[in-house]
């Protein structure tokens, strides 16, 4: 397991390898909570929002929405309380960066949440974690207590007029509770299903009050931005996507791990083949899912020699998306039919059941995949699968439906051979060689 920055100074990973990295003492020794002090004592809330806008920081939870813009949607004159919610649900398959941030450097997140709360006029911040991350809640709680004891959380923080409580909360283990409105429902103790948008959480979120939901990594970038300025952050990355990004690399590479890359890192082939140590056992690269399970799968031929830039625009141009940065590498032993079946089983299991296309569609898709896997595939099934995906995509209540359809659509289109083999009568299947 490698954790390192490549092509830039470690920004998010700066303190990862220090001894006792999660303690307040270590954090403060390395400049911790100075950004909070700077914000509270020398900046107005609007200054903070402007700095974040300037930084071109985009949400790291998957959608990549500009964070400063999101913050500016919170109505200033609302008489209602406002909330900051950290989305630490991290349930996108292939994504495991937030957990290391919280495990190794929890104070960075707390500081980010406090600065956000200051900017938005919130007095309460929640950190919502998936149920399986129970051990992280303990770490976070301990850090919050430490910070409170040091006057960094609670009443009159750092002796200023700013007061803010920070609470942790665990879900019960549902992917959909990573979707921000489902998260808010869950946080309120309701069933974990998404809410209708609009209204967006910035206007009516937790308990109907203005709420900003941000990913762990997004919030962790905030202290650095305040300390060094938005322009400095932006200059680390590209014009439209500032700063650095964590990539959770798993699968068939020599050195899986969490890598911090500057936005716009050149290029994906180098990243896989050199930085991550290449494909082990002399195998060949077959496919990459670059941004967590919900994005289009990429073929090796669309990466090798194609100079794929690793940022939002670069990946879209290459036919996929940054998503949550869950970077899954597959070598030529992988049957894409099987790997896609695995994914759709996940989506079926995680569909909240609210809307027709996702609930019934994922169930049907799984049944079809299983039938095909049993050797009962029919040539027309490829069309059936694509048509079912088409009936889900763009018609579901929340993006989970799309997320279920995209991997299948792209897999069938980009790896037709892997599907065709399964759709032949059993006798013929045996004659067609499986995977290389």
């Amino acid at each position, binding site marked *: 397991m490698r954790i390192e920055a490549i092509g830039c100074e470690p920004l998010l990973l700066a303190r990862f390898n220090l001894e006792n990295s999660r303690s307040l003492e270590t954090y403060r020794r390395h400049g911790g909570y100075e950004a909070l002090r700077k914000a509270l004592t020398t900046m107005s809330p609007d200054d903070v929002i402007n700095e974040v806008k300037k930084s071109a920081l985009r949400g790291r939870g998957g959608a990549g929405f500009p964070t400063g813009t999101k913050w500016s949607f919170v109505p200033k004159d609302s008489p209602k309380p406002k909330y900051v919610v950290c989305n630490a649900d991290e349930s996108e398959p292939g994504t495991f960066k937030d957990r290391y941030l919280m495990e190794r450097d929890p104070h960075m997140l707390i500081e980010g949440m406090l600065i956000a709360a200051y900017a938005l006029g919130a007095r309460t911040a929640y950190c919502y974690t998936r149920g399986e991350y129970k051990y992280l809640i303990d770490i976070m709680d301990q850090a919050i207590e430490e910070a409170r004891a040091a006057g960094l959380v609670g009443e009159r923080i750092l002796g200023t007029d700013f007061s803010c409580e920070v609470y942790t909360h665990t879900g019960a283990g*549902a992917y*959909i509770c990573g979707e921000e409105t489902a998260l808010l429902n869950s946080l309120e103790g309701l*069933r*974990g299903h998404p809410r*209708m948008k609009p209204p967006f959480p910035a206007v009516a979120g937790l308990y109907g009050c203005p709420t900003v939901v941000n990913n762990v990594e997004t919030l962790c970038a905030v202290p650095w931005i305040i300390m060094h300025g938005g322009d400095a952050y932006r200059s680390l990355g590209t014009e439209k996507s500032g700063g650095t990004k964590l990539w959770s690399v798993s699968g068939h590479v020599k050195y899986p791990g969490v890598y911090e890359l500057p936005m716009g890192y050149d290029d994906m082939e180098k990243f896989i083949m050199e930085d991550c140590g290449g494909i082990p056992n002399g195998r060949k690269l077959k496919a990459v899912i670059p941004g967590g399970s919900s994005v289009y799968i990429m073929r090796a031929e669309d990466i090798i020699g194609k100079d794929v830039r690793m940022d939002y625009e670069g990946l879209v141009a290459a036919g996929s998306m940054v998503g949550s940065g869950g970077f899954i590498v597959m070598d030529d032993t992988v049957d894409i039919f099987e790997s896609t079946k695995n994914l759709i089983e996940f989506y*079926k*299991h*995680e*569909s*909240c*059941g*609210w*809307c*027709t*296309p996702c*609930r*019934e*569609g*994922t*169930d*049907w898709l799984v*049944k*079809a995949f*299983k*039938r095909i896997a049993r050797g009962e595939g029919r040539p027309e099934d490829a069309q*059936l699968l694509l048509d079912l995906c*088409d*009936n889900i995509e*763009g*018609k*579901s*209540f929340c993006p989970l439906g799309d997320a279920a359809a995209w991997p299948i659509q792209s897999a069938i289109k980009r790896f037709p051979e892997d599907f065709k083999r399964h759709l032949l009568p059993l006798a013929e299947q045996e004659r067609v060689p499986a995977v290389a």
Partner: protein
Amino acid sequence: MAELVKVTINGEVYEVEKGRLLIDVCREKGHAVPSFCYYADLALQASCRMCLVRIEKMPKLQTSCTVTVTDGMVVTTESEEIEKARRGMLEFLLANHPLDCPVCDRGGECELQELTFDWGNLEERFIEPKNYQPERYLSPMVANDPQRCILCKRCTRVCDEWMGEEAIEAGGRGVATIISAYGDWLNCSQCGNCIEVCPTGTLLDATYRHQARPWELVRTVSTCTFCSDGCQLALGARGEEVLRTVARDRYVNGINGEFLCVKGRFASHPFVNHEARLRTPMIRYRKGGKLVPATWDQAIEFVAQRLSAIKEEHGPQAIGIVGSPRLTNEANYTLLRFARDVIGTEHYTATDAFSLVPFFENMGAPLATHRDIRYAQTILLIGGEPEELQPLTGKQIRQAVRNGGARFILINSVPIRLKKNAAQFVHVRPGTEEAALLALADADSVEFAARKMGVETSEIEQVRRALSEAQGTVVIAFGELSPAAQKIVAQLPYIYADDRRRFLFHPLPLFNNSVGVHDMGLMSGAMTATEMLDAAGKGVRALYVAGSFLQQHLKGREEALSKLDLLVVQELFETATTEYADVVLPAASFAEVDGTFTNNAGQVQRVRQAIPPVHLSKPDWLIVASVAEAMGARFGIELSASAIFRDIAANVPAYQGLRYPLLKDESRPVQVKHEIAQRRDISGEIETLRATIAQADETAAKITETPPVGHELFKLGTLTEKLPQFHYLAAGNPKPENTLASSPLVQLTIDAALRRQRQEMALAGD
């Protein structure tokens, strides 16, 4: 007038009110849009995805049930893309559906079936095995076939938003989501509204299971015969038997929409064809002897002769005539005319639980309709427990608060369930609700009243402020009140109203025609029901009773009826009153007659004949008219319900000009014109109240427990006890061992419940 915007739908331009839901606008303009989860005035759900349309400048298809119209919006509801989406959704919904329409009670009136006709594919592409879910029972009233569910969640929303119960909810997730109850058994008020709004055969009337197909039933729109809210319903009859009651909007569109309560929905019809119905007239020739069947001619002759003789011997005042708040206006009015014009007695009354005469005499503002309540901005409820006694009113208050943001103030000695919707709950000592009225009417009494009620003066001041500062419609609802308190409540508008607000009243009497029987004048006779019983054998020698006395009348007067020279009773069943009757005349029930009821909103609504009178029974008014004729009197009108109603319209000012044809459309109920009283001097009543309240015990403990659901609703009465399942509810509705029973009707009899109770008692005894 709301702002108008221009919307283009399928190329046609319309001007419509801004902010309306697109789906409503499309439908109103004749562009059909299919839907399952959309249900007017419930929280938006947007989950079925049937209503997708294309809106220009928006990236994806949009759910028309969630989009509000804006100026310049360009909408397409028909295109290849939209058709594919709708067919796709329907295909998904049917993927796991059992397609067992031939054995489904909903078949023939199922929205899923209907939309499948429109948007279903001819061929099924789904070849994999379906997910199986067993059928089961969620209560004695609610049968459940989860596999047919499309998860539109209308059921859970009505349960929550209409009923405030949250008894039925979704469990599980994804394709395993299942609509269920906590502990898989519904311990709710059993209204069955979840059944009504379910567009599929998932939730079904367990008391009507597999009894008929919808197309076999002839439906008759009528008015409920239980509480004073006056819900509209459709009786479904096959031949001469009423098999079910529904409020489905495809059959009936009344003040209640698809809402009914447990009594209206399940108990409206089982008594109609019940074997215990009285079959023939009966005469008891000798006191203490047996009732012997007689012909109508014999019975009428007998009654006429005896009444004439008593009148002759003791004078007309010796005869008491008793109507009923359960009977039609036509029946009660005929009784009034019988008393005044034929017998010539002032001793007439009706068996209501309390009289509203003092209120109506002094009423300083009109009555509130249920729609007024839904859209009121302030609602004050003094006493009463509408969620148990007038459930539609309860629902309207809940929705006014939840969906309309109304301010609801509750003054009660009991923390009733509606408390949870109240912005302010003034929790007073038992029996001191009227002190609150005193304090509202008389500023000088605030401190005194607050002390007696055991509340802070600031709480009263807050209510006073709410009444004087409120904008918009203020509805004052109240339960049973003393005559003095009724006059004070009736005059409150003169104390608080000015042009910024409109005051409306909503009295909460107990019976379906309490207001009508008052309007017909029967409650204004010289004696009350209890006074008549007390005078039995003394001043009063004979009683002619349509319906029966209430338990509360007979309590402590058990002997009274036996002291009469003559007791004539018109009834459906044998009751405590018929026990002493010299003549029992079988009356036709509401399902067998034409007529009208007047509800607590003053709306006069039609009762319609669904089946001919059972056995030898006759409409109450016809029986009375026959007796009158036998006594040599004629009413001078042709004998039909509509003719009697014309007579009412000619003689009761509030009903002036009304005719049956004007009452034809249940979706436009007619409110009668009760006279609005002038400002009256209420100082005397204030004194009276002060004196009574002075007696109240200042140390009395408050009632802290919220009464359980059904404590009034599930009480067995002459009508409700005819449904076996009602006994099960009255026995506490225990969850049976097996909710999946193949023949649960057998298991769900009272016997099974008692057996189980005995078992539990035996176990607990060890």
